[in-house]
């Protein structure tokens, strides 16, 4: 088989060809810096496209365009949200609440804030990855200034009860940030009904280019700028605008608004078929996290007993199938997964976890090939494994 079957869409997605087409003229023809829109018609033209992109994102989120600020990606948006609120509002308190299964962009930012005297409280998540809004309520004190809970988890696809948590925070006048990097462009979002104050997104997770993202900051919410400089983006994010990236992000947002529903239903169908066939053909395979119907519809995260995932992924790759979840045990690696650990998966099983995330360019016809390959590989790796007793 010559085609590559890419099943690691939660890691990154290919840029949609229509997005590339939209971006292309802004590299070397309409390349101007939009900052000089008052004195250069070339800049004005670029500025208009940048504002259109802002509008497209605003629409996708149910926000106003002047609540959207462009960044270099999800990581920067998370840093901006957490450090921006903490350093601006430290006079109101020093406690921040989050959960242990957040992305490292959140966790490491919180660690930094801890070094600056903030107190980080983690609410527990259950074996499926869900946080209980009641526990957030219990953890809130007079000193709490910020709650940061991701919309959906990137490893196990658990969708958190954002609306309830948003309501709790709004009632208590506490800022609420959500990392929606895995959901924007995939499932409907409305910042107003979610009651979020800040939201992070990243273009390359929904068929936009890498190196660009955005942060929603609700009108009236003040943050200390994270990226200091020339004062672009109303001072919230300095630096010459990545116009091509932003215009690409805008186009990806527009396409998502139009096609999301269909895409997600196709993706779900393929994911469900895959899981069905895997369960039928391969013994001793278990789902990590929430039930198949209460997680992101592109996500499958499974334990395959008795083997490790690194050789599994390499062998799949040899057959043209690219999946995720690798957990090399060697130095320099950031695994075993803190997410699987937090939901109580045992170490030995974590090293055998496989993450398959479907994207809109995957073809359902390949499901049989994937399952067959997986089955054969699992069999030979189990033969190879000192941990496998043919259980």
């Amino acid at each position, binding site marked *: 088989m010559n085609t590559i079957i890419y099943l690691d869409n939660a890691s990154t997605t290919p840029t949609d060809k229509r997005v590339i087409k939209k971006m292309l003229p802004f590299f070397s023809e309409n390349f101007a810096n939009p900052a000089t829109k008052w004195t250069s018609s070339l800049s004005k033209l670029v500025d208009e496209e940048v504002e259109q992109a802002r509008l497209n994102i605003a629409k996708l989120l149910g926000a106003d365009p002047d609540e959207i600020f462009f960044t270099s990606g999800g990581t920067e948006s998370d840093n901006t949200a957490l450090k921006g609120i903490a350093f601006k509002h430290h006079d109101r308190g020093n406690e921040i609440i989050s959960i242990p299964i957040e992305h490292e962009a959140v966790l490491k930012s919180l660690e930094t804030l801890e070094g600056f005297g903030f107190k980080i409280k983690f609410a527990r998540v259950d074996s499926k990855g869900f946080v209980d809004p009641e526990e957030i309520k219990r953890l809130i004190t007079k000193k709490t200034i910020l709650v940061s809970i991701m919309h959906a988890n990137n490893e196990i696809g658990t969708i958190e009860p954002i609306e309830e948590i948003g309501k709790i925070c709004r009632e208590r006048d506490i800022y609420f940030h959500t990392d929606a990097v895995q959901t924007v462009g995939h499932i409907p979002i409305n910042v107003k009904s979610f009651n979020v104050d800040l939201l992070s997104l990243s273009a390359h997770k929904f068929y936009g280019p890498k190196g660009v993202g955005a942060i929603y900051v609700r009108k009236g919410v003040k943050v200390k700028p994270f990226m200091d400089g020339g004062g672009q983006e109303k001072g919230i994010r300095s630096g010459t605008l990545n116009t091509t990236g932003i215009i690409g992000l805008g186009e990806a947002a527009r396409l998502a608004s139009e096609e999301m529903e269909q895409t997600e239903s196709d993706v779900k169908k393929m994911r469900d078929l895959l899981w069905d066939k895997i369960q039928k053909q391969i013994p001793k395979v278990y789902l990590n996290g929430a039930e198949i119907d209460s997680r992101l519809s592109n996500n499958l995260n499974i334990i395959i007993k008795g083997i490790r995932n690194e050789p599994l992924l390499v062998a799949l790759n040899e057959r043209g199938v690219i999946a995720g979840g690798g957990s090399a045990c*060697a130095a320099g690696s950031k695994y075993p997964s803190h997410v699987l650990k937090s939901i109580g998966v045992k170490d030995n099983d974590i090293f055998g976890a496989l993450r398959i995330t479907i994207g809109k360019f995957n073809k359902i016809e390949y499901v049989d090939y994937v399952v067959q390959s997986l089955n054969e590989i699992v069999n030979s790796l189990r033969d190879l494994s000192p941990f496998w007793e043919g259980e």
Partner: protein
Amino acid sequence: MYPKIIIEHFMHPKNVGRLENPSNIGTYETLSKAKAVFYFLIEDDIVKDIKYQVAGCPYAIAVGSILSEYAKGKRIFELAKINKKFLEKYFPVDEDKEECINLPLRAFLNGLSKI
């Protein structure tokens, strides 16, 4: 990705499995739960038969295969001299992956010296 020779051995590893009646068994396990086991049939200081199992990455699996192939019919005093240098003749070792080579190598050496 792994060097070609590693992928070849990984995709078609030799001597996989257990021996019924091994004279020696060598095992090694890393902190992160990777594990290698070698089963030797050693007679008159000569390796008559060998099999192995590895739960680890392709490096670890391929090195198991290479070692087991090399060991067959060899004398243990020769085999006891095997080290990382010896393996580097077969393939380049990425610094990220030194642990992965250590894993089967130690299990192998452990099996030589132990009864």
